[in-house]
């Protein structure tokens, strides 16, 4: 089914997010504020969440148990899958690879980090794709922060996780926020700073104070954030749609014009025509690059006085 941009509906758009921070800062509670959550408690940390904020949870000993639970019909009741923590998930996957993938084991029976992490990486991505794309759920990865120091000793925060997952987990995620206590407030920041990395998109950026939870403030921070992101996507769509339409139209024209160039005369005519087109986004620079590639291939050069001429003339 081909859907044109103007017909696209983002009202049911799902998101993926990373939440990370120091132990005890409330990462799991924030993750549980997403719509209809199911927590996969790889880290055995649900007991640390206040009883009234706990949500349905998969408690498991092996990765296979999680896969079995995910195929249960009751999964339809949930809109968000929380992976708590991403680092512990990798530990489960290492155990799974050791038991099921002969190549993941060294001759002495230990984890073969080179081959083993290859299996872990592939399964990590398959799992995420299944939950996000096939099951169409929101996905939240919770990570502990790993404090390192830069050259000057300034602390920098990274995801605590073995292997390459700590890098590529950022690729597919829409937002990534670092939680910390600032002036007595729990805040999450989606804009990267020197001290920590973060990811902003769909207009969700900067620092947000996470409300103190009581009877008047239900645990719905991530639900509201997702709703805001959906509204922002609609607004972005309204802004970019005419630009993208104009861009596509202009680039189509440019391709035709450039194809017609055969010599200096037609190159000069093409340059004039391209200049006068209605440009959008980066069509002007891209058209200039296409023109240059074509004139170079014909052995033409540009001079201020005569425009395009044959090289050597």
């Amino acid at each position, binding site marked *: 089914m081909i859907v044109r941009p103007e017909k696209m509906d983002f009202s049911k758009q799902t998101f993926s997010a990373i939440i990370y921070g120091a132990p005890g800062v409330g990462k799991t509670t924030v993750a549980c504020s997403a719509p209809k959550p199911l927590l996969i408690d790889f880290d055995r940390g649900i007991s640390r969440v206040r009883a009234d904020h706990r949500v349905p949870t998969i408690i498991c000993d092996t990765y296979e148990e999680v896969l079995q639970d995910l195929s249960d019909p009751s999964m339809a009741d949930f809109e968000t899958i929380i992976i708590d923590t991403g680092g512990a998930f990798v530990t489960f996957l290492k155990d799974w690879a050791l038991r099921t993938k002969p190549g993941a084991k060294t001759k002495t029976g230990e984890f073969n980090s080179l081959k083993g992490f290859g299996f872990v990486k592939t399964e990590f991505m398959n799992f995420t794709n299944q939950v996000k794309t096939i099951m169409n759920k929101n996905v939240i990865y919770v990570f502990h922060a790993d404090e390192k120091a830069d050259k000057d000793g300034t602390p920098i925060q990274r995801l605590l996780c073995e292997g390459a997952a700590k890098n590529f987990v950022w690729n597919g995620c829409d937002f990534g926020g670092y939680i910390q206590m600032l002036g007595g407030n729990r805040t999450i920041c989606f804009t*990267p700073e020197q001290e920590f990395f973060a990811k902003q998109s769909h207009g969700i950026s900067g620092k947000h104070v996470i409300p103190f939870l009581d009877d008047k403030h239900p645990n719905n921070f991530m639900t509201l954030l997702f709703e805001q992101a959906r509204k922002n996507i609609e607004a972005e769509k309204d802004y970019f749609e005419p630009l993208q339409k104009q861009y596509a139209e202009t680039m189509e024209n440019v391709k035709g014009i450039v194809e017609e160039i055969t010599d200096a005369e037609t190159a000069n005519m093409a340059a004039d025509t391209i200049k006068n087109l209605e440009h959008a986004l980066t069509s002007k*620079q891209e058209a200039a690059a296409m023109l240059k590639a074509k004139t170079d291939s014909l052995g033409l050069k540009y001079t201020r006085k005569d425009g395009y001429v044959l090289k050597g003339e």
Partner: protein
Amino acid sequence: MERYLMTQTLLSSWLYTFNCMEELEEDAMNDFLSTLNRETKEPTDAMKNGIEFERLCYGIAAGTYQPTGVEFPRTFAGASKVAEIIRGAQVQVALQKETEVLGMPLLLYGILDGLKAGVIYDVKFLNKGMGGVDLAGKYLESPQHPMYFALCPEAYLFRYLVSDGTDLYIERYTRTETPPIESIIEQFFCWLDASGYMSVYKEKWLAK
């Protein structure tokens, strides 16, 4: 009127002298001085690998890649992932722009690896596996995306496409979260003045 050339390579080389590991400080400073003096250098193996990888990405993206041997190159899987993203983009787009910093007229110059529909792409090749390095935030303070946003004011997004030949890591920056390149150049000029290298810059980087 005299103008001076400014590239992200020069700024990156200068910033690396502050960000490198302590034991590499001397090498970093020598590299920077070599760049400042515009000395021609033989590309290192790491640089050659990067250039070869980029070519492979462009070739696959354009559909012009022809395997030369019986086996695909070791980096084919990673290059294919990059190619999928940059397909349809204009590649190696050279741009320049005039500006002025602290009263000095400058010609900013850069070559964008890829440009498509308002998005700038930069292809990076890692000479080691991704598992052993923390990539997230690696480019936060790079002068590259500020420079390229300045060169291409219509672009709204910059995406670093980092591959180790197998995996792909993407780091994206929007224009709104990017500092103006002028602020980085200003710091660079202050440092050149304080270190006595401003005359070298003016001599070697005079734009033709």
